[in-house]
C-alpha cells in the first residue's frame, strides 16, 4: 500500500531531510522521490510504502503536515488510490 507525499513551497535547506526523517521514524519506506526547484519554488513528490508503517496513517499525515508548517511549506499526504481513481479509466 503506497502513499504519495507532496511538498510545495519556498525552497529551503533540509526539506527533503526533514520529511525523510519523519518517514523513517514512522517506518514508511521511501520508494521514489522526484523533485524540482523552479524560480525558488520547491516541488517534491515522494512515493512511500506504508505497509510496514508503525503508526496509524492518520498520525503520519498529521506529523508530516505539522513538519511542513514548521518549515513554511505545504505538505499533502494522500493514499495513492485517489490519484489512480481520478486519472485512470
Amino acid at each position, binding site marked *: 500500500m503506497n502513499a504519495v507525499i507532496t511538498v510545495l513551497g519556498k525552497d529551503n535547506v533540509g526539506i527533503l531531510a526533514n520529511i525523510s526523517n519523519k518517514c523513517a521514524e514512522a517506518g514508511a519506506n521511501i520508494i521514489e522521490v522526484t523533485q524540482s526547484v523552479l524560480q525558488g519554488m520547491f516541488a517534491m*513528490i515522494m*512515493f512511500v510504502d506504508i505497509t510496514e508503517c508503525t503508526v496509524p496513517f492518520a498520525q503520519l499525515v498529521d506529523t508530516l503536515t505539522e513538519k511542513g508548517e514548521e518549515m513554511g511549506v505545504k505538505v499533502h499526504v494522500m493514499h495513492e488510490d*485517489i490519484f489512480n481513481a*481520478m*486519472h485512470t479509466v
Partner: protein
Amino acid sequence: MINSHDILETINMIDNENLDVRTVTMGISLLDCIDGDIDKACDKVYDKICRYAKNLVRTAEDISKEYGIPIIHKRIAVTPAAMLSAACPTKNPIKFAKALNRAADTTGVNFVGGYSALVHKGFAPGDYSLIESIPEALDITDKVCSSVNIGSTRAGINMDAVKKMGRIIRQTAERTADRDCIGAAKLVVFCNAPEDNPFMAGAFHGPGEPDCVINVGVSGPGVVRAALAKAGDCNITDVADIVKKTAFKITRTGQLVAKEASKRLSVPFGIVDLSLAPTPAIGDSVAHILEEMGLEQCGAHGTTACLALLNDAVKKGGVMASSHVGGLSGAFIPVTEDAGMIDAARSKSLTLTKLEAMTAVCSVGLDMIAVPGDTSAEIISGIIADEAAIGMVNSKTTAVRLIPAIGKKSGEELNFGGLLGRGPIMDINRKSPEKFINRGGRIPAPMQSLKN
C-alpha cells in the same frame, strides 16, 4: 506509476479550486419503526438511527484524512415520516421531528432529511397531519429537513397539495422570521422527487430503497471553471469535452469515497450523485462556469443554452466514472448559495423568469430564492405549479425552495450564513393566480408520446 502532473493537478484542484465531496449521506429505512404508539415509534426511530449511523461521521472523517479529499457534510436520509405518522393518526407528528433532531445531535451529522410526505396522487393517512406540522417542525428543530412531492410524470400534479404547500411555505417563513426565515430554506416542494438523493433539503430514503445505504454527492464547480479558463478560446464542442473530462475526475473521487465508506461501515453502496453543487465561496460557483463559457453575466440571453450544455456534459462525464449513478445528478442553481448567482440577482441580470427557464435544463429547480415578504400563499402556489409542470412534462425532477422574506421588500437581502449563503430578494409577478389555485383537483398525467 502515477505521473507527477496528475498528482499536482489533483492537489491544485483541492487546494485552489474547491474540489470536495459534498456529502456522504446514509439512507436508513424506518419502516420497521412504525408503531401505533407514537412515543414507542419515536424511541425506535432514535435508536435505529443512532445504531446505524453511530460511526458515520468518524468514518467519513477518516476517509477524508487518508485520501486528502475534503468531505464537507455527513448526513442522514430517512423514510418519509408521513409513513410513520400514518400509524398514529390522532397524534401530532412533531414528535418525530424532535426524535430525528435528537438522533442528528447524537450521531453528529449536520442534517437529517425525511420529514417528508409523498402526495403526488393524493393524501394518505398521516400526510395531512405531517404537512400541517412542517412549519412548527422546521421552527423548533435546527437539523431536520423537510420535503413534499406534489407531482410526477406518471401521476400528474396534485393541485390540492400545491395549494397547501404555498401556505405551508409562508407559515414556515413566518415562524422563523426572527432568523431570516431560515425554516423555509429547509423545505423543498418536489415534482418527480428521486428516492436516493443525498443532497439537502430534499433528501429522503424512498420506500423502494434497502434497509440502509450509502449515497454520495460530489461537487466541484470551481474545478470545471478553472479547466475552461485554462482552455481559452476553444469552440463549444471542446467546451463540452472539457466539462465531461473534468466531471469524470470529480465523480471518480466520489465513487472512491462511496465504495470506501460502504466497505468500512458494512452498508451497501447506493449511488453517486453527479452534481455540481456551488457554495457562496469565491471560486465555487456554477454561474461563473456559465460566464466562463462566454456570457457577460449569468442571466444574459444564452444562459439557458450554456446551462443545458453544462448539465448534460456533467452527466456524460460522470456516468462512466461511477458504477451506480442516481439522485439529482446535474448542475444545481441555488441562488443564495452561489456567489455568481448572488451578483447576477443583485444586478438584476438574473430574474425569476430566467431562472424558471433555466430549471427546464438544470438538475433541480427554483432553489434558494428569496421573494418579498408580502408574497401571497397563492402566488407561491402558482410558482410551485409552474415549476412542477416543467418537471412533469419533461420527465425530470423539479423543485421549489422559496424563502418569503417576512417583513422585507424586493432589493433588500437575507443572510442565512454558512453554505445556505445570502442573497437579494427577487421581484415577482404580482398578478393573482388565486382562482386557478383554489380550484383544487389534479392536473392529469401528460402524454408520453407525440412529443413536440
